[in-house]
């Protein structure tokens, strides 16, 4: 139980360093006040008693620093102790340690891949200039409400005859925000080779 109490006292002084400081100041003040009272009872003037109490205490700042060093040394010693303990545990059961490392590695790796996909597909805008004006065009079966695909010829009709879209020529390289160093425009080849029937 004493060990537990020691540990909890340690944890408390780590977490609440400000509380430790306040406690220290109050204890020091109390000590000086008690010593001053004792000296006054021996017949000294209050001022002289206070002065002698401070001298007997022996340098407030010196003792403050010693208390802080004690807390800091404890923090460092605890950290080193924790690391040593972890290494010892790993050496004692290497199979378990490897299993944990692999599990963590795979978990973090898969997480990274999934986030990469989601980030590229959903969060970042499409890498095109004026990407907020881009729209997707789909067909919908009015009876079932299920979406369907759109034939290229239908797309061309919508594009040219609906008047609802301001058309950016997809064959125009300048349309892309990413500028290729070397590119061949197939604007004139692909669509026009399929001449409407």
């Amino acid at each position: 139980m004493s060990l537990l109490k020691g540990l909890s006292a340690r944890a408390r002084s780590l977490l609440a360093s400000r509380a430790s400081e306040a406690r220290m100041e109050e204890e020091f003040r109390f000590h000086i006040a008690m010593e001053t009272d004792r000296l006054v009872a021996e017949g000294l003037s209050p001022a002289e008693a206070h002065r002698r109490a401070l001298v007997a205490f022996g340098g407030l700042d010196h003792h403050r620093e010693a208390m802080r060093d004690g807390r800091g040394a404890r923090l460092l010693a605890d950290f080193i102790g924790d690391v040593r303990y972890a290494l010892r545990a790993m050496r004692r059961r290497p199979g378990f340690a490897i299993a944990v490392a692999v599990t963590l590695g795979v978990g973090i790796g898969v997480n990274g891949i999934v986030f990469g996909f989601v980030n590229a597909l959903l969060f970042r805008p499409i890498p095109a200039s004026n990407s907020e004006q881009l729209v997707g065009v789909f067909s919908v079966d009015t009876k079932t409400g299920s979406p369907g695909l759109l034939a290229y010829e239908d797309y061309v009709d919508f594009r040219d005859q609906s008047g609802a879209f301001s058309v950016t020529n997809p064959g125009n390289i300048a349309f892309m925000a990413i500028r290729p160093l070397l590119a061949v425009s197939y604007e004139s080849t692909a669509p026009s080779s399929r001449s409407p029937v």
Partner: protein
Amino acid sequence: MASRHPPESDALRGSIDLLVLKALSLAPMHGWGIGLRIQQISRGRLEVNQGSLYPALQRLEHRGDIESAWQSTENNRRARYYTITRQGRKALGEEVDKWKRFADTIALILES
């Protein structure tokens, strides 16, 4: 560290821990009271900065040899009272045995 206040030697530091435990084994007490009690026990022969008690108290509390709580004194002042733990009593017993063996050994050598 200021040169006016060199840190205590390990021997003195160890003996401060021992004296604090001895003083607290009689009854729980606040820091100032512990200092007074040590002075009385040693009949004023030990010249120790009263402030040196507090790092020692902190050290002992971290080790689990003593514990502390706020309480009111007879004059209605708030003070931190220290109590020796079971582990502290054990440590005190072992330290006292060690000191006695040491003193016996020295005495034996000097009387031979």
